[in-house]
C-alpha cells in the first residue's frame, strides 16, 4: 500500500516541558487511523502540528511526498473538524460548506452543486439556508464535516469530534463518519480518548502515553496483544492478579492459596517473589470448560447486568477479578455470595 503521511522524529516542547517526545509513524492512503490516549498525552498537539497550527520543535511531516513541516495551515490542503463544531455563526449552512470552495475561487454554479452534493452525503439535504444556531449539535458537527471535506482535502483531521455530543448521537455519528470516510477513501486521522470509539471505527490505532507511542496496530492487535502494560490497562478492561511464585522450576504460582501451573514464567522469577498476572474479563468462563487448563474457586462479590453480557466480580481471596459471561435466558445469573468456579486457558494469561 502507498505511504501517504510520514511523521519523522516529531518533537514538541512548550517551554521546558516536552509533550511530544519524538514520534514516528507512516499512514497509508485511504487509511482511517485513530490517535488514542488519555487526556494530556499529546494527541491534539500532534494533530495540530500536522494541521500547521503548531510548529514542531524538531522533526518533519510529509504528505504525499511533499514536506509540509513549514507550510502555513492554509497552504496544506487539509480538512479539519473541531470538538466545538466551530461553524461560522454569520454564515448559513450552505455558505459554511462553500467557504473553502469560495476561498479557492470555485465559480458560484459549481459551488452550489458541490454544497448540494455534500448535504446529501451528510443526510441534511435542503438545509442550505439554515443557520448553525438553529441546528442540533449532531447536525452542526455533520455540517462541520461537510465543510472540511467539500474542498477535497488531501487528508481529514478530526480532534475529538464527538466529545461534545450526547452518548447516543456519539455512536451513530461515529458510524456515519466512518461510512463517509470509506465512501470517499480519504486518509483520516481521528483523535480520541475513548478506546471503544477508536477500536470500533479505525483501520489502525496509535496508542499514545505521555508523549510517546506505545503501540501502533489494528484494533484486534491492540486489544489482544497489548505491547505494554499501559496499553493493556488503557484499552479494554483488564484484571490484575497479585500472586507469588510457588515454584519457579515448575512454573507454579500461588493465587490466594490456590496453586496454578503456567506454561512459562519470566526468566529471573524466584520462589516466593511477588508476580502480577493480567487477563481480560472475557477469557474467563463460569465453571469448567473444555480447553481451559486453570480453574480457580471464589465467591461472587458483585453482579452487573449489562443486557447481552453479565459482568460478575469474583473474590478469590484478596484478589477480585471481573469476568464477562453471555446472558443465557434459560439460566439465572450467579447471585452475590454464591461459591463459584471460574476457568481459563493458561495461554490467555498476560504477564506484563
Amino acid at each position: 500500500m502507498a505511504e501517504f503521511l510520514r511523521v519523522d522524529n516529531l518533537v514538541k516542547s512548550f517551554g521546558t516541558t516536552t509533550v511530544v517526545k519524538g514520534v514516528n509513524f507512516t499512514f497509508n492512503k485511504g487509511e482511517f487511523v485513530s490517535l488514542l490516549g488519555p487526556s494530556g498525552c499529546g494527541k491534539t498537539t500532534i494533530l495540530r502540528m500536522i494541521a500547521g497550527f503548531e510548529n514542531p520543535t524538531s522533526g518533519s511531516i510529509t504528505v504525499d511526498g511533499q514536506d509540509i513541516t513549514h507550510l502555513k495551515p492554509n497552504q496544506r490542503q487539509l480538512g479539519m473538524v473541531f470538538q466545538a463544531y466551530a461553524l461560522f455563526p454569520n454564515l448559513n449552512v450552505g455558505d459554511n460548506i462553500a467557504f473553502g470552495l469560495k476561498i479557492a475561487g470555485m465559480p458560484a454554479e459549481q459551488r452550489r452543486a458541490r454544497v448540494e452534493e455534500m448535504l446529501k452525503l451528510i443526510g441534511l439535504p435542503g438545509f442550505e439556508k439554515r443557520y448553525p444556531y438553529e441546528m442540533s449539535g449532531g447536525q452542526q458537527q455533520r455540517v462541520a464535516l461537510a465543510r472540511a471535506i467539500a474542498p477535497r482535502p488531501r487528508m481529514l483531521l478530526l480532534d475529538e469530534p464527538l466529545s461534545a455530543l450526547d452518548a447516543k448521537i456519539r455512536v451513530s455519528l461515529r458510524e456515519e463518519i466512518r461510512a463517509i470516510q470509506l465512501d470517499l477513501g480519504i486518509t483520516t486521522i481521528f483523535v480520541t480518548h475513548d478506546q471503544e470509539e477508536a477500536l470500533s471505527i479505525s483501520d489502525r490505532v496509535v496508542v499514545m502515553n505521555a508523549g510517546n507511542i506505545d503501540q501502533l496496530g489494528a484494533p484486534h492487535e491492540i486489544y489482544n496483544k497489548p505491547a505494554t502494560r499501559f496499553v493493556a490497562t488503557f484499552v479494554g478492561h483488564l484484571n490484575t492478579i497479585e500472586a507469588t511464585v510457588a515454584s519457579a522450576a515448575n512454573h507454579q504460582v500461588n493465587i490466594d492459596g490456590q496453586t496454578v501451573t503456567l506454561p512459562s514464567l519470566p526468566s529471573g522469577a524466584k520462589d516466593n517473589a511477588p508476580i502480577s498476572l493480567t487477563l481480560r474479563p472475557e477469557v474467563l468462563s463460569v465453571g469448567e470448560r473444555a480447553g481451559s487448563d486453570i480453574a480457580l474457586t471464589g465467591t461472587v462479590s458483585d453482579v452487573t447486568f449489562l443486557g447481552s453480557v453479565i459482568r460478575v466480580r469474583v473474590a478469590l481471596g484478596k484478589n477480585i477479578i471481573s469476568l464477562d459471561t453471555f446472558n443465557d435466558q434459560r439460566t439465572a445469573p450467579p447471585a452475590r455470595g454464591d461459591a463459584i468456579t471460574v476457568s481459563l486457558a493458561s495461554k490467555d494469561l498476560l504477564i506484563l
Partner: protein
Amino acid sequence: MKQSRFWAWLVFGIGAAYFLIPLIATFEFSLRMRRGYYSFDSYASVFSDPKFQQTFTYSAVIGLLSIIVGILVVVPAVYFVRLRMAWLRPYVEFLTLLPLIIPAIILVYGYIRLYNSSSIIPFTGSAVGTDILLTFAYVTLALPYMYRAVDTGMRTIDVQTLTEAAQIAGASTPQIIGRIILPNILVAVLSGAFLTFAIVIGEFTIASLLNRPAFGPYLQNIGANRAYEPAALAIISFIITWGAMSMINLLSRFAPRTSARTD
C-alpha cells in the same frame, strides 16, 4: 412589597426629573423665538443657516473617516492580541484608557508641536493635512470606547477556533478578519462606531485649536452670539446622540448567534 416599590419609583422619578427637566426647559425655550406664542422658528433659522449645513457635513464626514480608521486599527489589534499575545492585553487596555486621562487640550498642543508646518511631518501645513490630523485625533479620543466595544464583541466568539477553521480551509489572515471575525462582531463594532460619531459631532477643543470648520466650534459660536438658536441646536444634538445610542440597542438584536448543543 408595596413599600419597596414606592421607594423605587421615587428614586426613578428623581433621576428622571434630573435629566428631563433641563431638557424640557431647553426645548420650551427653543420654541419661544416668536413673541407671544410657540413656534419652530429657531429650528428653521438653524436649518437654513448655510454654516450649519457646512459644519455639520464636515463633522459628519470626519466622523465617518474616524470610524473607518478606528475599525482598521482596532479590530486587527484586538484580534492579534487575543490570538497570539494574550500577555499584552493588560498593557493594551491601559493604553486605550489614556485618552480618558489626558485632556484633549494637551493632546492637541502635542500634535501642534509635533506636526506643525515646520516639522518633518507638517500635517498642519495644509487643510487636507489638518483634516487627516483631526481624524487621527478623533480616533484617539474614541479609542477607549471603540476598543472596549470590539473587545466585548470578540469575547462572545471563539476567536481561536474560528480562525483555525478558516485557516485550514485555505483562508489568509485578511480573509479571516474580513469574512469571519468582522461580520461576527459587526454589532459590537457598530456600537463603537456610533459612540465615535457622537463624540466627533460635538467635539470642540481639538477642532477649534486646529482651526477646522467643524460642528463643535459652530455650536460654541452660535451659543455665544444668539439667544434661541443655541437651545434649538442643543435639542438637535441631543436627538442625534440619542438616535446613535438607540441604533446600538436596535442592532444588538441582529448579532450572529451560536449554540453549543450536545444533541
